[in-house]
């Protein structure tokens, strides 16, 4: 698809002559990537489970819960009222062993962890201990699925905005390199050391607390507005501050990074030649600067995207955004271990999907992957 969209640099010309060959290469590359990612995800999720179990701690919680539940049921049971203390405790012990065997808690850990793994991989995440979804479901999967769209909305809008704004600015700066604004942006690039939530706090202070222009948090006004348009506008109003926080924290370092790429590439000989041929700077930018830096830009973008899933957790907490991150925060507060483990598994999946998509796009734009020696070489 990119063949028609963008003019090709000279070294990629051979591929257009053998499109079928290139397609096979691409398919092989993608399937290889997919396979290796699947293996990586499996290992990643397994490690997550091992860590989550923390030397049997999660099992201990579960066992304690079982014992308490059974004790309560028996003490409430009118028919068991006449039992002696010894008889009762023996009965409790029996029921507890039975229940533990039913849940497989008597099996060795290795076996159990493998069962956990197969369940986690198929997203059978179990039931939450305390939390429930807004629709009332106790299934961890339902809770997480309900929280996923807000997270995606926030992250997608923030990142696409950041990506295009930084790219545009970087191009502008590479054209006016050495100007005052260029120097200012370089000087400001260390501000990106602070994460988005940090700027979020300042933005909340300024726009919500002092000026009162924008809401303190949440996704829509309470109660939610009636009409679809009003609802969308309300969501938009709530989106402004978190997106802005994300932009501020990513902007300066992003622009600085891209700008440096562009400058390095615009010093290449072939750009000089193009300039000597009298091409317009727009054409030079598109054909000879933007195009070869694309893989680098995408790698850069990939790294931000991967970092994003982490930054989101706290940004959502600060802005009370009802997404995955805040779910995790609530789950920590309630010690709801199935939800915490479930979220970790989902995050592993999201990371894998991100990495895969980026590999795929990378394969589309990088002529070396399409034409060259092929194979997974990143």
């Amino acid at each position, binding site marked *: 698809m990119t063949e028609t969209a963008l003019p090709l640099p000279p070294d990629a010309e051979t591929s257009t002559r053998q499109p079928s060959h290139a397609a096979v290469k691409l398919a092989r590359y993608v399937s290889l990537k997919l396979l290796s990612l699947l293996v*990586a995800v499996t290992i990643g999720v397994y490690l*997550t489970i091992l860590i989550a179990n*923390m030397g049997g701690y999660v099992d201990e919680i579960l066992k304690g819960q079982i014992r308490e539940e059974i004790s309560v049921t028996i003490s409430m049971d009118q028919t068991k009222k006449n039992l002696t203390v010894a008889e009762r405790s023996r009965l409790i012990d029996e029921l507890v062993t039975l229940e533990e065997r039913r849940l497989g808690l008597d099996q060795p850990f290795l076996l159990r962890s493998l069962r956990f793994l197969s369940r986690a991989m198929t997203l059978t995440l179990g039931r939450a201990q305390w939390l429930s979804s807004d629709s009332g479901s106790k299934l961890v999967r339902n809770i997480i699925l309900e929280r996923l769209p807000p997270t995606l909305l926030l992250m997608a809008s923030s990142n696409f905005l950041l990506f295009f704004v930084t790219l545009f600015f970087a191009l502008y700066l590479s054209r006016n390199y050495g100007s005052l604004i260029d120097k200012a942006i370089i*000087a400001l690039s*260390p*501000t990106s050391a602070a994460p988005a939530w940090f700027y979020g706090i300042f933005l909340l202070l300024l726009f919500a607390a002092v000026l009162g222009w924008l809401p303190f948090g949440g996704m829509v006004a309470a109660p939610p507005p009636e009409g679809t348009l009003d609802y969308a506008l309300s969501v938009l109003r709530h989106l402004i501050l978190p997106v802005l926080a994300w932009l501020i924290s990513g902007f300066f370092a992003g622009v600085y990074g891209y700008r440096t790429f562009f400058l390095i590439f615009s010093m290449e000989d072939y750009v000089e030649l193009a300039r000597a041929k009298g091409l317009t700077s727009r054409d030079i930018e598109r054909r000879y600067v933007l195009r070869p830096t694309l893989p680098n830009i995408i790698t850069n973008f990939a790294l931000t995207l991967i970092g994003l899933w982490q930054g989101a957790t706290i940004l959502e907490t600060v802005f009370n955004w009802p997404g995955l991150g805040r779910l995790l925060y609530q789950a920590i507060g309630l010690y709801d271990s199935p939800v915490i483990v479930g979220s970790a598994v989902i995050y*592993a999946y999201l990371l894998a999907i991100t990495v895969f998509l980026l590999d795929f796009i990378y394969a589309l734009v990088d002529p070396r992957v399409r034409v060259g020696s092929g194979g997974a070489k990143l």
Partner: protein
Amino acid sequence: MNNLKRSLREMAKFPSAVGGGIVIAFLVFLAIYAVVSIPYSEAIRLWRGGEEIWGDNPRIVPPAWTNFFRREKQPTTIIRNSRDESPMTSKTVTEISEDMWDVVMTFDFDYNFDAFPQDLIVFMEATFVEKGPFVSLFWITPDGREIRLGEVTAKPSETYRFAQDERLLRRLKGVAPQIALFADPEKETPTVLKGRYQLQIAAVTFEESADLEAKFVAYGTVHGLAGTDHRRRDLTVALLWGTPIALLFGLLAALGTSVITMTIAAVGVWFGGAVDELIQRITEVNMLLPTLPILIMVGTFQSRSIWVILGWIVLLNIFGGGIKGFRAMFIQIKEAPYIEAARSYGASSWRIIFLYLVPRIIPVLIPNLVIGIPAYVFLEASLALLGLGDPVLPTWGKLIDDARSNGALYNGQYYWVLEPAVLLMLAGLGFAMVGFALDRIFNPRLREV
């Protein structure tokens, strides 16, 4: 040594590096000052001790220096204790009859602020065997009015809270005592009547050995250098002690991660083959591990100690993205003639790795390390914000978390958020500025553009 001098001279050419260096020097000074002036155990006591340590501080008030910027001067806390020898306090004991003694205490204080205090409390300690002393309290204003406050029969430890005395409230026509007692009766809107006030505590004791001591606290609306939090704790302690913790945490995490990552990359490149392959695969898997959720799980299930978390952070980051960059550099260096020379005279693999390969990378490592520090400082704050801060140590992140969960932004208590946030920002910016400059010095390709 010459190298170091040259680098320093290079650094001086970057104004941002100089600025960052000054910021770092300030923070290091602050950290040393904190550790020297408040020893660790004392810091923990001040931060986690209990009511007797911070009971005399007002609750959630901004720092005292904010008065410089205010037209209406806010009051600081005034404390008068009958145990203190001071011209402002007096205590006399007179015998009334065989089994009755009169103990009269007066507490004088000048009140020249423009705002009313936050709260008024008298803490009393009575010593007696059977019958506690009967205490009456009176308030004398600068214009000579005498207001009867209340009466209590003192228990061994008695607290008289002005605002909770229903009868006093009725006598003051429903106006809160901390306002009514200081207000100018001539004015329509409550205005402070400035001048010398006196609190009189007259007690009748019924035993020869009985005695009464009292402490009067008029809680101010500003406090100390940094203000106080919702538990009346002085924020100065946490701000000061947050500095060494943040610096140490950031430095250790960045140092641990980058040095180990570099070593692993060197080992992988040198041995190549299966070792290299394994390291690459681990890196790929590691990229998919959700770092923050794992840290959250560690914090929830295992331990919230900052040092345990630090260990996990290093563990999760050593196979991070940095390994690729180091690898690319080592591959180049591996081909250098001096490495071949080393090999030909029979140097062992480990000797080559640690004495010939690794030192070549150090110029690249240093900027990497310095740039890495703020990320870890903020990571600690992030974890604290999720409620997973260290349970014992006071950190900047925990202050922000406390402030946020107590609605400081919503209630306009901005100082509570801003103070730790500004320090965090300073630490982040300082290291980032120096790191960026170092990067440009050590990587000449960046310098050209």
